[in-house]
């Protein structure tokens, strides 16, 4: 595992240093938001999931032992928070109360209503989060395996299928996968 650039801040935050944790939030907020937004396809829900993820991280900092990168640990929490958010929405659809959007909100809204997001929405949830972790956030097979709790082989298989499907849906692909004839 490479040295964790977050380690000094994490140690301070684990001792209760709130400002150190705020800096960790600043470092990772946009990437967590991207993960949640691309997975959920809804800005407001993604914001809730990101807030929940950081809250869980703050509460659970004591259990982080540095066995993985802090970002990997955080992504795993975010994946779970986004999943829970989706389940809640399924169980009890609620109207979201939204305030006036700022420029970033509008940009995110536009991105999440575009062709790429529609293509992502056509993938199953596992494929979607795998391809976002890999192709947007640059996570390795091993990191994705740790974040999503599956074997690396499963990660590769999901990534393979997701990429071909995305290419097809976006009109940049042709046929399907080869058969081993």
């Amino acid at each position, binding site marked *: 595992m490479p040295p964790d650039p977050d380690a000094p801040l994490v140690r301070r935050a684990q001792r209760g240093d709130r400002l150190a944790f*705020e800096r960790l939030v600043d470092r990772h*907020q946009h990437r967590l938001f991207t993960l949640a937004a691309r997975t959920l396809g809804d800005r407001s829900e993604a914001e809730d999931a990101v807030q929940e993820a950081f809250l869980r991280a703050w509460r659970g900092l004591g259990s982080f032992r540095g066995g993985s990168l802090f970002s990997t640990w955080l992504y795993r929490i975010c994946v779970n928070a986004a999943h829970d958010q989706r389940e809640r929405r399924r169980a009890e659809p609620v109207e979201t109360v939204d305030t006036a959007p700022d420029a*970033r909100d509008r940009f995110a809204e536009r991105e999440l209503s575009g062709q790429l997001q529609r293509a992502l929405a056509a993938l199953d949830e596992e494929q979607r989060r795998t391809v976002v972790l890999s192709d947007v956030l640059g996570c390795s097979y091993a990191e994705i395996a740790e974040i999503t709790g599956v074997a690396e082989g499963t990660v590769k298989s999901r990534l*393979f299928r997701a990429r071909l499907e995305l290419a097809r849906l*976006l009109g940049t692909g042709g046929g399907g996968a080869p058969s081993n004839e």
Partner: protein
Amino acid sequence: MADRHPDELDLLDLVEGELPRAAQGSVAAHVEGCARCSEVVRQLRAGRGALHASGVLQLSERARDGISAAIDEEPRARRFRFWEPRRLGLVVAATLVLVASAVAVAQWGGVGDEQGGDAASELAEDDGGGGDGAEGGGVEGDAQTVLPESRTDTIRVAGPAREVAAELRAEGFEARVVRGEVVVQLTGERLDEGQAPEEDRLQAVLAERGPGRVTVRVER
């Protein structure tokens, strides 16, 4: 074209640059001569490129402030937990010392009372002050325990708070809205030659805004 197509995941590894060196040559050569596999590789690259080009979305400042506000409402991140292995040992040790002291008192008529108590408090202090678990046995009050040498000043300026924080961030300060107040963290970092000390720059920015109802908390 070779008789047998490579495994599909080898094609993915080829695209990702993760294929073992020994296999790279043969797989690449196959792909070059095989229309079907080269098409799959093209699609894999297209699928990756589509998302990669979309980049990272930005969380709005409003949502960012919401995270700080939510954490504000939380109690401390960690509490003293007796069952943590390192602490458990210390708690057991302290208990044994207390028991031993009580036995000594019973046997020798109260002479060891103070000593036993001191030993137990020393152990408790060791635990509170050392290493990762330095939250002082669950004592509340982050700022005092974590930043014992810190100093905090408050200034009241014209708001709104979010606008003040944004202006300070634009000037290179770490500024955040917490419970309606603007918290500025001065880093004390060495400044480039010719640049005013950060406190002077901060004062200048705040003076520009003039007095008002928004509290700016300056932490050092």
